[in-house]
Every structure is written in structure tokens, then in C-alpha cells.
């Protein structure tokens, strides 16, 4: 019996050895001049173009073997990129501004996605139950509003909506709830309003929730929401890879703009969104170029709302 246990322990140690040795194979150039890069993304509609672009071979033809890693929320993505586990990541602009302000040493390499810029037809909005007395963004004063992350792009853009409608954003009571929990919380009356993005905007609409503020639209025209980024260190050491990756993303974004039906086909390959629901979603728009004015606006809002103390130097953050 003891001998068998010893054998088990020895076996364990053997298994442990390769497990401990991992983590060092980041950017080993593979055969045939291709470079394997890992991109950390969140499994949401916003990143559909990169999946589609990979299918279309836009990365392969530039010598990039693209590996997608999905993480839950940006929290695991930023340290993943700065520690070198991922070479690139996808994150919203406000998170990137905060990270840059904290000195994490990151830089944007390509556009992620943008608001449609159309009131009534965007992919994110503040919604209230059908019978709520709240009629517009100014009425959010004194209301409990659910956001997925406090002190981030949700609160700062909803604040912009409230300000534009003549309200005082400091009177809004934000509460943190995960997006999937918002429809139920809203219909049970646990919150007065919720800032939701797709697919939950459509899900709440099916429950007769009513949009009262289109916060992305109110913040800036064609607001840039998210971007693909890398660490300063990686960009310095691999300028060619970064350039090739950025070009491939830009081509993917263009392809996504021109082939909306293919976007709706690729989404189920990495999410569990119901096939019927996908057809009804409002998609973001995917310009290839970075909207510097929008980033500047988010930068100013982040300072105004106290997310960062002073504005981030955009020349360092943006390409």
C-alpha cells in the first residue's frame, strides 16, 4: 500500500514538472516565419470582427497565427497583457485610460468598436421598467442605476447623459451589478434603472423595459468604445508583429462592416447567444480608424468624474 502511494506521489511530481514549466512560450516564432500571438478577449458581440477576420485568413496572410483566449471581463485581460500571457487584449477606452494613468505601460494598436451614434438604435442604453416615472436622463437624479463596473465607462457616459439633460450626475446612485443579473433585477424592482448593452438591451426590451438615455450617443458623436491594445514592452520588442496585427484588425473591421450577416453567423461560435436573439441585436459599428476626439472626450470625462486625477497623454496611448 505504501509503495503504491509513493508511486502516486512520484507520478504527481512528474505531472507537476511540465505544469510548472509553462508560461514562457509567448512569442516564439514558429516555422515558416509565422508568429503565434494570443489575444485576450471578452466573449461578447463587440469582438466578432476579429473572429471573422481570423476565419477569412487576414492574420494568417500576415504571418500571424492567432490564438483567441476568452476571459470574463477586462479584469483578467489587463494583467494578462502586461504580464505577457497575452500579446494583445481588448478593453474599453476608459479602462485603458485608467490603466495608463496607473502607469501600466500599455498602448492602443487598433480600433475596437464604436457606438452607432443613433439615438434609439445603439447597442447600449439606460433602461427603466415600463411603468417607471423616469422619463429622461435628468430624472435619473436620486434613482438607483445598475452598472456593470463602478467608476468606468458606464458611469462616466451615463453621467454625461445626465449632464446633457440638465441633471446633476452626483445625485445618481450607482450600484454594481453584473450585466446578466440586470434584467431580473430591473423587473423585480431592485434597481430603478440599469445601463445595459447587447444582448441584454434586447432582452430587457422583450420584457418591455423602456430606454431613457442613450449614453454613448450623448457622450460624443460615434463614440469609440473599446480598442485592441498591447504592452509598451511588447510593442518595443516586436514592432513588426504589432504593425501586422493592427493591419489585420483593420482589415477585419472593414470586412465586418461590409458583411453584417457573417457577423451574426460568427457570434454563436464563441458565445451561447440564442440564434433568434442574434438576429434582433443592434450591432456596434466597426470603423477601421481610431476616433481620437472620442478618446479625448472620455479622457476629460474620466478626469471630471474623478476616475483619474489628470488627463492621460494621448500621444503615448494612441498610435
Amino acid at each position, binding site marked *: 500500500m505504501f509503495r503504491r502511494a509513493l508511486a502516486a506521489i512520484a507520478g504527481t*511530481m512528474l505531472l507537476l514538472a511540465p*505544469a510548472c514549466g509553462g508560461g514562457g512560450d509567448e512569442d516564439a516564432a514558429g516555422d515558416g516565419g509565422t508568429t503565434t500571438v494570443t489575444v485576450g478577449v471578452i466573449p461578447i458581440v463587440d469582438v466578432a470582427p476579429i473572429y471573422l477576420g481570423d476565419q477569412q485568413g487576414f492574420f494568417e496572410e500576415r504571418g500571424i497565427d492567432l490564438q483567441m483566449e476568452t*476571459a*470574463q471581463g477586462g479584469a*483578467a485581460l489587463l494583467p494578462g497583457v502586461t504580464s505577457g500571457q497575452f500579446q494583445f487584449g481588448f478593453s474599453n477606452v476608459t479602462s485603458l485610460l485608467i490603466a495608463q494613468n496607473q502607469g501600466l505601460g500599455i498602448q492602443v494598436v487598433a480600433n475596437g468598436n464604436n457606438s452607432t451614434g443613433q439615438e434609439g438604435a445603439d447597442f447600449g442604453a439606460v433602461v427603466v421598467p415600463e411603468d417607471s416615472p423616469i422619463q429622461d436622463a435628468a430624472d435619473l437624479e436620486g434613482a438607483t442605476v445598475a452598472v456593470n463596473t463602478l467608476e468606468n465607462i458606464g458611469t462616466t457616459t451615463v453621467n454625461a447623459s445626465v449632464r446633457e439633460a440638465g441633471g446633476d450626475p452626483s445625485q445618481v446612485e450607482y450600484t454594481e451589478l453584473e450585466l446578466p443579473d440586470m434584467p431580473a433585477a430591473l423587473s423585480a424592482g431592485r434597481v430603478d434603472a440599469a445601463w445595459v448593452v447587447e444582448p441584454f438591451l434586447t432582452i430587457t426590451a422583450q420584457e418591455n423595459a423602456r430606454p431613457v438615455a442613450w449614453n454613448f450617443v450623448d457622450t460624443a458623436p460615434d463614440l469609440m468604445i473599446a480598442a485592441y491594445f498591447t504592452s509598451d514592452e511588447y510593442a518595443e520588442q516586436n514592432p513588426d508583429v504589432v504593425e501586422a496585427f493592427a493591419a489585420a484588425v483593420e482589415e477585419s473591421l472593414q470586412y465586418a462592416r461590409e458583411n453584417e450577416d457573417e457577423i451574426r453567423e460568427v457570434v454563436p461560435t464563441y458565445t*451561447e447567444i*440564442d440564434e433568434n436573439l442574434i438576429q434582433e441585436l443592434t450591432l456596434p459599428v466597426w470603423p477601421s480608424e481610431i476616433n481620437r476626439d472620442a478618446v479625448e472626450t472620455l479622457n476629460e470625462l474620466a478626469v471630471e468624474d474623478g476616475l483619474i486625477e489628470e488627463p492621460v497623454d494621448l500621444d503615448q496611448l494612441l498610435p
Partner: protein
Amino acid sequence: MTTVARERRTPSWARGLFGFVVFLVMLEIVPLSGLVPSRYLPPLHEIGEALGAAVSEAEFWIAVGDTLGGWGLGLSIALGAGIVLGLLIGSSGLLLRFTASTIEFLRPIPSVALIPLAVLMFGTEIESKLMLIVYAAFWQVLIQVLYGVRDVDPVARDTARSFRFGAWSRIRHVVWPTALPYVMTGFRLAATVALVLAITAELVIGNPGLGKQIATARSSGAVETMYALVLVTGVIGVLVNVGVRLVERRVLAWHPSVRREVPA
């Protein structure tokens, strides 16, 4: 007497099954009754449909494999390290005194509190999941082994010493048989804890596995699929428990606690 007779008529697995059936019936009735909105807690038959769709995809089985793989590997590491260190520390009074306060300090730290550290060190690679599993499961084993070593009959120990048993033979013939039932208890506790931590890590960190599938279904608003996967984790938990008990019974077949027919 009568209870014994009744127990014999309905075997324990049948009673367990009855409880499970009641649970499933409740799961069907409660959402349909409108007690909770069926949009957010779908009735059983809808969960069943989603489960049927899920199990027909390779993705699901890969996820099950990832979860069980991480669980097995983490559990083995915790078991190996717990037994070796437990025997080592337990057989030396000096080591025991030196490590006691450290163990008492580290043991209550919940493994999930180490998630930020695990993500920072290993990202979403399997190591971060293993770190959480091993940390949680290791203490369960170590503490049991320490108790087991302490439980050695002093007469047996002294006898072994007077027969000039070497350290190795002492561990093998005296300490190990005494500690084995404790080791098995540690193994049983660790096996369940390891599964909980495997799924937690996948849910929160996003390591590949069932937990990640649950999180993806959740962030996609696919409520039925999410609950289907949650039920699957429950089934795996039951299977793990049954399996561990079988192993325990076999390993300890000689032990009085298992060998029931011998009256004390």
C-alpha cells in the same frame, strides 16, 4: 428493530433518488407557478432541452474533460504534498512546533482570496486553476495526516523502536497503517473541495472548463444553458463523491470501521 427492517425494504440509494426526483419536480413546478419569473429560472423541461443540445456538442465534453483534468491533477498534487509533508512534520516534534502557527495562519485563508494573485502569476493558464485547487485541498489532507500521525499507538511505536526498526520501516509498518484512515478522510474532503475550486476558478478567472461555459452562457443571456451546466456540475459532484467512497472502502477494507462483520 423496526427501523432496521424498514431500511432494508427501501435501500439508501432509492431514498436518495426519491429526494432528487422531488427536487427535479420542484424545479419544474416553481417556475411554471410564477413564484419566480420563468424567464430567469426556466422550468426543468426547458433546461433539459438545453442540456440535450449541449451534450451533443464536442465543446461540452472538452469542457468536462478540462474540469476533471484540473480537478484530478490538483487533487493528486495536494494529496502527494499533504501526505509527504504531513508524515514529515507529524513525525518530528520540533518541526510540528515550528510549523504549527504558520499552518494555523495559512489554513484559514480562503483559496478564492488568492484569485488576484493567481491571475497575476499565471493568467488564465491551467496553473492559476491548479494553484487554487491545490491550496484549498492541501490543508484538508495535511491536517488529517497530522492527526493520523499523532494517533499512533505509543505501545506499538515503542515496540517498533525496541525492535530497532529504522525510520523507514517505522513509517511503513507503524505510522502509515494508523494514518491511512485519516488520509482517506482527507482525500474525501479534498476531492469535493478540489471540484468546487476547479469550477470557481473557471467561472471567475476564465480557465477552460465547465465553469467558463457557465460564465459564457450567462454573459450570453442563455439562461437555460446556464442552468443545464449548473446541474451537470452537481451530477459530477455526486459522481466524485461516490467514486471517492468506493476507493475509501477498498483501501480500508482491512480497517474495523469498514469491516463491519467483526463485533467489537
